[in-house]
């Protein structure tokens, strides 16, 4: 096992994002199953700074035990683990009726086999090496998933409204005209309102490509969307979280 390289995204903006995460899901509790102790220590510390309660298991068997004995909002599971493989931990947890969302970390240099991971019962997949900001954003979104009713037909953030059935978007009662892709972009952002959403997550969920967009393609789409929903209004809703991604939020 090599030590994955992290880069922290602790910026002034992500601080506020974490506060919001705490506000929505007070004391999110996660389990990290990772055998690389250095990486685990870094992750644990960074998650705690983001206001998340972290338990750590360093092998597959103890991870499986902790995962089935306690209730976690999210579990972060490394694929390559001693004593029991990460994928087998997940399928065993699912067999035992544990439904908490699972984020799989691929081993460095391993085949990036997202499909196998998701088939085993994982909910999200992050290949190493990754930025910690990416991991944090994904864990927060996964942890909030339980509390987000998928059946909500209208998303609201401040005076911005998005109707998922009629595909209508209104700001302060005025129609905002969006292209289909812009609509899906806004829909995903609003579904995860108050959460940091990374560029990779946007490419995954709006365009259905699972890799790191190397350039500013996503930024250009977001800034187009921003200009459409904010052009004639004073209050900004769509924020750029430097070093991490974007967040839509009503600052109140």
């Amino acid at each position, binding site marked *: 096992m090599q030590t994955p390289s992290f880069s922290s995204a602790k910026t002034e903006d992500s601080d506020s994002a974490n506060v919001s995460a705490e506000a929505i899901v007070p004391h999110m509790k996660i389990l990290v199953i990772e055998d690389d102790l250095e990486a685990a220590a870094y992750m644990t510390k960074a998650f705690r700074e983001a206001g998340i309660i972290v338990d750590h298991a360093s092998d597959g068997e103890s991870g499986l035990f902790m995962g089935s004995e306690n209730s976690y909002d999210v579990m972060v599971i490394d694929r390559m683990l001693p004593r029991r493989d990460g994928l087998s931990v997940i399928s065993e947890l699912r067999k035992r009726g544990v439904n908490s969302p699972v984020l799989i970390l691929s081993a460095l240099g391993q085949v990036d086999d997202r499909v196998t991971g998701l088939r085993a019962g994982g909910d999200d997949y992050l290949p190493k090496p990754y930025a910690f900001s990416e991991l944090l954003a994904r864990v927060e979104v996964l942890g909030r998933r339980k509390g987000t009713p998928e059946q909500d037909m209208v998303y609201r953030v401040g005076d911005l409204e998005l109707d998922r059935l009629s595909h209508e978007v209104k700001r302060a009662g005025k129609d905002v005209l969006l292209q289909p892709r812009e609509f899906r972009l806004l829909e995903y952002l609003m579904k995860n309102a108050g959460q940091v959403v990374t560029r990779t997550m946007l490419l995954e969920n709006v*365009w259905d490509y699972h890799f790191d967009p190397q350039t500013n*393609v996503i930024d250009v789409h977001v800034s187009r969307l921003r200009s459409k929903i904010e052009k004639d209004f004073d209050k900004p809703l769509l924020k750029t979280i430097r070093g991490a991604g974007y967040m839509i939020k009503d600052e109140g």
Partner: protein
Amino acid sequence: MLSRIVKRARLMFRSTAVRLSALYILLFAICAAFLVIYVTALSEKTLVQQTRQAIEEEVADIQRAFNRGGVNLLLRMMERRARQPGANLYVIAGPNGEMLAGNVSSVQPGVLDQEGWTNLPFSYEPYSEIGGSRRHLAIANVWRIDNGLRVMIGRDLGDPSRFRYIVRQALMVALAIMGLGALVIWFGIGRNALKRIDRMSAASQKIMAGDLSQRLPVGRSGDEFDRLSGSLNAMLGRIEKLNEGLRQVSDNIAHDLKTPLTRLRNKAADALAEDREEVRKAALEGIIAESDQLIRTFNALLMISRVEAGSMAAEMSNVDLSAVSADSAELYEPVAEEAGISLLTELGPGIVVNGNRELIGQAIFNLLDNAIKYAGEAHGEPVIRVTLASGGGEVRLSVCDNGPGVPADKRAEVTKRFFRLDASRSKPGTGLGLSLVEAVMELHGGRLELSATDETKTDAPGLTITMVFPVPKP
């Protein structure tokens, strides 16, 4: 002393030439032995035949005399002939085998008891040599006349040991000539070949010691050895080129990673020394951005390795290339627009290839990224065209720009890892984009083609990169 000789001999026998020569000698010897045996047998047979013929003539004379003058004439004639010198044997024996007349004192027992030709040569003692030690061999014809008398006419076969001596001599001479021949072959051909192989080994040793520019000696004869040397030299050339490429890549990696790492370090040092909170924050953010770029570079490298290793081949399925191209163009259209570039598409509908949608998508993204980077330098209005068409057993997806293009002699190099057209690396990017595209095309059994968009515009011919896919089998 003896063990040393044995050791030397064993060492010598390890040489191919010596072994081959020994084998040749053995084969020659066997052939020669057969030949000698055959020739001996043949000449013996001829000798016996000639002897028989002489005997038959003699028998005919004697029988004629007997028919004409009875026993008396026969006896007289035999007596006369027996006294003449020569190799002929004349015997008249009594009913009990006692010698009555002739030039023979005794014959091998039993010879006189049969009639007609003796089956085998028999030994006898001539009258003139009673008690002599020389052994005489002869063949003869025996018949009976009146009163139980037996007449034998025969002929000496000559000295058998002398005959064998001649044969043995001939064999020895033949073997000696062959041995000499083998030595000549070994010296002339074997040693020469050995020396050439030794020269090749010596050259290989030098190459193994690290001097990849060394080549094996190639003669002018164009024989097997020269062809072998030629092939090995070609292989060495390829290895040297690959090695050179590898060193280039390592150098580039070192450069590409060292520069941002140095910047990273300097920014961290600045941040550490900085008291003003705002400036320090900015420096730290710069560090994060720098690190992210490094992670991207590593990700891209890993991705290329994975694609090249072919480990993603299992995830192949039918991919709607028309849809992926349209998606990609749609994704990049705002980026192009922001850069003042028109992005035009001409996509054939419903074109499907067998492949990995993610990888194909990423490859197209990379091509578009690249095109946007260079179309900005176009003379006149910058345009990027994306065309997708199928025909002739191929599916061709082209991304054309009207930027400065790539000189024809550099086109093969742009897909190399970390290769940048501008050596200063002033443009942003990892230098890995096209390497990934090429790896993706190889994985899909296709290829990547680079050409000028418009050859006639010498100042800005533009670059057209075409992903050529094989048409999937139904």
